[in-house]
């Protein structure tokens, strides 16, 4: 079984978010980490390696320094790492990004592609589903539990939904987008870290992408543009009331909801 995990290097929001004067993220001023949902996707793949001996390839697109997330993935137990990097790929929105990654994936054999649900910097949740459409394979999103049957060549996913969950089965090859709730990613091992720096990272540029048009990559291939980015506006202080009885409390809440046209 061959599993490919798509991961993204994102700014670590733990240390606070920093912006450049033009309103875009100042990535250089922030520490970079592997996107949390992607890390859960990687853990899911490594579990398949533990259970079925699956070969785990990790693929990322980004600046050359994004190699760090591949080293981290090696140190957790991934077998192969591919970095897709090229100046002409810069400034890509989700459309151009998914086109690029699909172009890289066309070079690979896979039974299952795992991605995170969404990245903490863009929060679009679009790239995973778009990749599946470019490749013409089934998609199951929002995975919070997963079973793979290598004999029957199927994946069965517990798919999170607003008010419940769906159990969805797809034939392999398929793409599954994973939630952080899926698992707790393992730590790297100390020895694994030093081995990771001995491993070869495969680096692909524009010319290594298969069946991708120039008009669909990079900034020129991106139909969306960021008009403005800003930090989250902090919520104001809430209102505290001390009602005499539960009935009074319920009345109060009903009134507020009514005033705000929620109900």
């Amino acid at each position: 079984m061959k599993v490919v995990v798509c991961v993204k290097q994102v700014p670590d929001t733990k240390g606070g978010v920093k912006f450049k004067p033009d309103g875009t993220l100042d990535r250089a001023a922030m520490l970079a980490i592997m996107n949390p949902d992607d890390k859960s996707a990687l853990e899911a793949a490594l579990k398949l390696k533990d259970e079925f001996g699956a070969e785990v390839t990790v693929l990322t697109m980004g600046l050359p320094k994004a190699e760090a997330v591949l080293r981290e993935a090696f140190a957790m137990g991934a077998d192969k790492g591919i970095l897709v990097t090229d100046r002409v790929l810069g400034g890509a929105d989700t459309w151009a990004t998914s086109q690029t990654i699909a172009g890289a994936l066309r070079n690979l054999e896979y039974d299952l592609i795992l991605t995170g649900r969404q990245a903490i910097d863009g929060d679009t949740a679009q790239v995973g589903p778009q990749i599946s459409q470019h490749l013409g394979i089934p998609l199951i999103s929002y995975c919070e539990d997963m079973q793979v049957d290598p004999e029957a060549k199927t994946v069965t996913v517990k798919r999170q939904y607003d008010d419940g969950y769906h159990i969805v089965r797809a034939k392999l090859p398929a793409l599954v987008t994973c939630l952080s709730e899926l698992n707790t990613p393992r730590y790297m091992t100390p020895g694994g870290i030093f081995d990771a720096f001995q491993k070869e990272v495969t680096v692909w540029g524009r010319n290594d992408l298969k069946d991708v048009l120039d008009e669909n990559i990079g900034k020129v291939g991106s139909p969306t543009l960021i008009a403005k980015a800003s930090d989250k506006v902090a919520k104001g202080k809430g209102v505290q009331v001390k009602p005499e009885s539960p009935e009074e409390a319920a009345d109060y809440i009903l009134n507020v909801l009514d005033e705000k046209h929620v109900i």
Partner: protein
Amino acid sequence: MDFQLDQAHEMARSLFRDFAETEVKPLAIEVDEEERFPRETVDKMAKNGFMGIPIPKEYGGQGCDVLTYVMAVEELAKVCGTTSVVLSAHSSLCMDPILTFGTEEQKQKYLPELASGRKLGAFGLTEPGAGTDAQGVQTKAVLSEDGTYWTLNGSKCFITNGKEADVYIIIAYTDIVEDARGRKSKKFTAFIVDKDTPGFTFGTKENKMGIRGSSTYELIFQDAKIPAENQLGQRGKGFPIAMHTLDGGRIGIAAQALGLAEGAFQRTLDYVKERKQFGRALAKFQNTQFQLANLATEIEAAQLLVYKAACAKQEARSDVKKRFSVEAAKAKLFAAETAMDVTTKCVQLMGGYGYIREYEVERMMRDAKITEIYEGTSEVQRMVISGSLLK
């Protein structure tokens, strides 16, 4: 000379820090208050390869260098002194002498079990009547007539990982020799002792000032039979083996001391920026600023000495003629005294809150004191250092 860690060491440090913050820190207060050995943390460290960091892969370890191991102890000590010494005693005092002095059979038998964390290690030299003065050791081992086993009698005290360990390195005297002037002295031999050895039991558990979750016990040997193949190194060479082992152990304790100082300093740094008196943050007062400057400088100096000692031990691994006793002694002396100074001043900077257990720096101050005492007191380190200057 390069003071920059490479990417792999930086990544290892981030791993240890992440683990310490996530898994170890939340338990630190409870482990101290309840004097509870953090078994669940040891199990997690075992799962993630932390129990065999400096052991070659062929013996089931992680194959990392001494510096990586030292950084693991340092990062653990930043959040929990107890957890850091569990790892240090296991690695430096038990696995290291087996790796350095053990036969191939001993390495094959013991190291994979220890390096995987399936078993925990400990070391016993100190006795009620012998610490710094090793000649006072009363524990005696006698070889059977057929040469197949040793009979061990005596007791060891203040043993870290005491009752929790499975494998113990024990120093006992096996011979008495007379020099040309007729003066008698004891000759020691080292042994690997399994926990389930008949005649090996535990005495009292010590109730300590700091590192309270660490399992500190008395070990008692009453006609304990040790198979001859468990003799570690040559007969009569137990003292140099113990000293070599303690040289390594001192680097681990120096790393623990460094981590304690760093942990207390970081908490204090956060605190003085928040706490306001006379309408401004404590950090705005020059007394605070100068104290912080002094402490940060001491900490960095300690770190350089500790890392230098780690690198010296690393070099000695490939060249047995190289010694690192003086580097280890300087690192431990300076780091331990730094830990005591920094933690004490951090408590003072934090005032009343520094004295409250919830704020953790008082625990670090209690934990720091032991680093000036165990694995050779600061006075012993001064003896080692001055001895090298005046020989």
